[in-house]
Each structure stands twice: as structure tokens, then as C-alpha cells.
């Protein structure tokens, strides 16, 4: 009997049955099927970039009271394809003195690092590439490929602005990786699982965004910085370092950095949805598991919209502000949040789900109130100092 509600499972079983009829035994059929999934998923991930670029350009345009792409095709839908044709037929320039192999490898790694994240995202109860028992750490490991790609790009181009931009970018990415991994630790703490499927399953009752809103906020900010979008786009500040690490890139190679950035942002949205918004859970998922894919894409798009919204809203920050914001606010906050949540969660592990989550939420609110009070006090004293410096010094002190 065909159960269309569990579409992915049915499809998988059908394909495996087909392979078995072709003469494979059961384990070989299962292996061939997962290899097929592993080979198709990167393609799907790459193709996702096409609608994303259109969507983001439209959103940004609306937020800035413009029309956005509207010439090629209905609602400008075909604009991305026109751009693809253009970028595929552009001349591919490698500057003199560049390290050719490394120069070509960098954009490939930039995309591969982002696409690699898709291997562990659960799209529905039965639809995921692979359920690793160290899924969350795998995300961090795949992310290092992006950092590596930028270092390679900056070094290989033989251009001092590229190298300078790469250094800035890497300094930002590694700095914000600390709060990012700290925020990724929170779902692990609360669910007791490192696999993403386990984390989603633990959110059937309460999404982690409600039990740990501060961690969700940390994740949101840190991943925006990790992707390097406004207000954290000082690594491609045109006025200072003429576009940063990718200055020498043109044609398809530049296109890959561009695609990598868009895809990274959306993938971070999907991860945010998985880790904090309950992933594929939602009403009706128990009877129709295929609905999960719809839920996670909606939730992921929502988080992605938050990223785009922030990009359209905030002005670019300076490098010292970027570093201070991370090392003097986000990292200490994460370091305090984790033991606090662990103690509350462990202390109330015997009590009911609602009491435990209410206590976790209370701990978050208390910590947030504390941080805001400290920040307010520091800000007030800084303003006082600025005000007292602004008044002219007494005559006796003037020389």
C-alpha cells in the first residue's frame, strides 16, 4: 500500500526494491541507495541557490522601497538564469604571480564547505543524508572549510588588499566561531544528543528557542557574522580594501563566492530552524511525516528572512567594534549561559517538562536582565566621561 503521507520513506523503499529486483542483496541495495542520496543532495543544495538569490534580491528591494528584479520573466523570476548565462560566459582571469592551483581551489572549497553542511540536516523524519552521532560537531568541522577557502583565496591572489581582506575576514570568522560553537552546545545540553535527529526529537514538546532564547540570539548574531553579511561586512568594505579577499576573482570563480554566501545564509537559517525552532516537527507530522519538509523549509526561510532583514537594517560596524562585541559581550555571555543552563536543567531533570522549561526560560531572562543592566551602567559612565571631557578645561589647567 502506498502511503503518500510518508512520501520520502515510500520513495526510498520503492527505489531499494527496484535495486533488489535488479539483483542486489538487501544491504547492497541500502548502501547503493544512501550513496545515491549522498550524490543527489549536494546537487539539490546547489540548485537551491537559484530561487534564493531571486528571493533575497526581492526582499532587499522591498525593504529599501525598490522593485527589485522585474524585467526578465514574470516578477523578474528569470533574472537569475540570465545572470547564470552571463557568468558562465565571462572571461576567467588569473592575475600574474598568482598561485594558479590554490587560486582555483579556493572558490570550490568555499562552496563545498557550505554544501557539506547539508549532509546532516534532517528535512523530515525519514529524509536526511546521514544521522551522525556527532552531527553538531560535524557542522563546526564543515564550517572550517569556508575559513580555509578564504585564507587560500587571500593568499593565492598575490594582491595586498586581498591578503589584508582575508586576514580581516578570518579574524572575524574565527572570533565569531567561539560564540557560535557555544550556542550550538546549548541544544546538545538540553537534548543530551549530538545528532541533529535527536535534537529535533527532543523538541517535540518545547522548542529550544523558548527554553534558551539567549542561545538562539547568540546563534543568530554569530552566524550572521560567520557568513560575513551586513552589519558584519567590513571584510568587503569597498572604501577601504576594495572588496577584500575576492578582489582578483572574476567570472565563475567570483560567482561561487557569491553563491556560497547566499547558500551559507540560507543553510544557517535551516540549521537555526533545526536546532532552535523544532526542525521538521509541527502539527500533523505524526500522521504525514512528509509534511516535515514543508515545516522546516518554512521555518528555515523565516530565519533566513531575519538574516536578510538585519542585513538591510543595520549600518556596517568598525573592526574594533566587531571584535569588542564578540570578545567582550557574546563570548562571556555564552560562557556564563552554559553552566547556568546545565545546572538548572540537571537540577530539575526529575520534575515536569513545563516546570523545567519555565525555569530555563527564567534563567535566560535573569541573565539577559543582568547583562542589560551592566551594559546600561557602562554606557552611562562612558557618556558621563565623554560629557566631562567635552566641557572646556579650567583656565589653570590650560597651558
Amino acid at each position, binding site marked *: 500500500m502506498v502511503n503518500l503521507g510518508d512520501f520520502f520513506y515510500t520513495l526510498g523503499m520503492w527505489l531499494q526494491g527496484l535495486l533488489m529486483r535488479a539483483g542486489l542483496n538487501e544491504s547492497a541495495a541500502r548502501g547503493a541507495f544512501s550513496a545515491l542520496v549522498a550524490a543527489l543532495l549536494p*546537487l539539490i543544495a546547489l540548485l537551491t541557490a537559484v530561487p534564493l538569490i531571486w528571493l533575497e534580491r526581492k526582499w532587499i528591494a522591498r525593504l529599501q522601497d525598490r522593485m527589485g528584479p522585474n524585467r526578465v520573466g514574470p516578477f523578474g523570476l528569470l533574472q537569475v538564469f540570465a545572470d547564470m548565462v552571463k557568468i558562465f560566459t565571462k572571461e576567467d582571469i588569473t*592575475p600574474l604571480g598568482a598561485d594558479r592551483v590554490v587560486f582555483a581551489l579556493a572558490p570550490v572549497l568555499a562552496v*563545498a564547505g557550505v*554544501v557539506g553542511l547539508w549532509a546532516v540536516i534532517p528535512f523530515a523524519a525519514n529524509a536526511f543524508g546521514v544521522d551522525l552521532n556527532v552531527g553538531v560537531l560535524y557542522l563546526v568541522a564543515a564550517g572550517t572549510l569556508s575559513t580555509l577557502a578564504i585564507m587560500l583565496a587571500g593568499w593565492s591572489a*598575490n594582491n595586498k588588499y586581498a591578503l589584508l581582506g582575508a586576514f580581516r575576514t578570518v579574524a572575524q570568522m574565527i572570533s565569531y566561531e567561539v560564540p557560535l560553537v557555544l550556542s550550538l552546545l546549548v541544544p546538545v545540553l538540553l537534548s543530551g544528543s549530538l545528532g541533529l535527529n535527536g535534537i529535533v526529537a527532543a523538541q517535540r514538546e518545547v522548542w529550544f528557542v523558548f527554553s534558551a532564547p539567549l542561545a538562539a540570539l547568540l546563534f543568530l548574531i554569530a552566524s550572521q557574522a560567520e557568513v560575513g553579511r551586513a552589519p558584519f561586512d567590513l571584510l568587503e568594505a569597498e572604501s577601504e580594501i*576594495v572588496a577584500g579577499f575576492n578582489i582578483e576573482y572574476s567570472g*565563475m570563480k567570483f560567482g561561487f563566492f557569491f553563491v556560497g554566501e547566499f547558500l551559507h545564509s540560507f543553510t544557517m537559517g535551516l540549521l537555526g530552524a533545526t536546532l532552535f525552532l523544532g526542525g521538521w516537527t509541527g502539527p500533523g507530522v505524526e500522521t504525514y511525516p512528509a509534511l516535515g519538509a514543508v515545516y522546516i523549509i518554512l521555518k528555515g526561510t523565516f530565519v533566513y528572512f531575519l538574516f536578510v532583514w538585519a542585513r538591510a537594517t543595520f549600518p556596517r560596524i568598525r573592526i574594533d567594534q566587531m571584535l569588542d562585541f564578540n570578545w567582550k559581550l557574546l563570548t562571556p555571555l555564552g560562557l556564563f549561559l552554559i553552566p547556568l543552563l546545565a545546572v538548572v536543567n540537571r537540577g530539575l531533570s526529575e520534575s515536569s517538562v513545563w516546570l523545567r522549561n519555565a525555569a530555563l526560560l527564567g534563567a535566560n531572562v535573569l541573565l539577559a536582565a543582568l547583562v542589560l543592566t551592566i551594559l546600561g551602567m557602562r554606557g552611562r559612565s562612558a557618556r558621563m566621561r565623554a560629557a566631562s571631557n567635552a566641557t572646556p578645561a579650567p583656565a589653570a589647567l590650560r597651558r
Partner: protein
Amino acid sequence: MDNAWSVVGIFMIVAIVLPGAALIMARLLGPKKPSPIKQQTYECGVETVGESWVQFKAQYYVYALAFVVFDVEVVFLYPWARAYGQLPLFATLEGALFILILAVGLLYVWRKGALEWQ
């Protein structure tokens, strides 16, 4: 094929091969008319002075250093986060102590002024 990592291996190979193939395709489709002027290092039209290795602030190293230490710390915390729920409350406090020792390190670096960008 019973090792879950074989799927990851295939996945990563495809994820590298696909963009690589696209690059090769773009190279075949695009025109190729190299000239010395075109291939010069781009600096907004100004001719390049000196070599590409410029001296960097040693301060970048301080941030990289802090990152390395906290990255290793977090790696230790993941097994803790996985296991503390099934161990006595004492184990939770062990992890908290581990974090607090490193928080002291962050406080030291901060107080020393190494985190001030200049």
C-alpha cells in the same frame, strides 16, 4: 557501507566535484584573451608598489590565540554535554568548573588590554 561516514565521504567528494566541473565548464564557455595589462594586480587602476606581503598587526595573532584555546575548550565540553544528564549532579559542576577556569583566562586577557584594537 555500514560505516555512516562513507555517506559523508561520498557527499564531500560530490560537493567538491560539482563546483569543480562547473568551473571547467565556465572555462570552456568563456573567451580567453589574456594580456599583461589585464592580468595585472588590481588596485583601482594605480600601479602596484612593492610586493603583496604587507606587514600585519601582531594583534591578529592574539585573537587567533584566544580562538584556539576556546575552540579546544568547547571540544572538551561536547562529551560533557552529552553525558552529564546521566551522571550525578557532581559531573555538571565539574563542567561548570572547567568553563570558569577558562573564563578566568578570558578575564585576564581582557584586563591585560590584549583585546583592545589599536
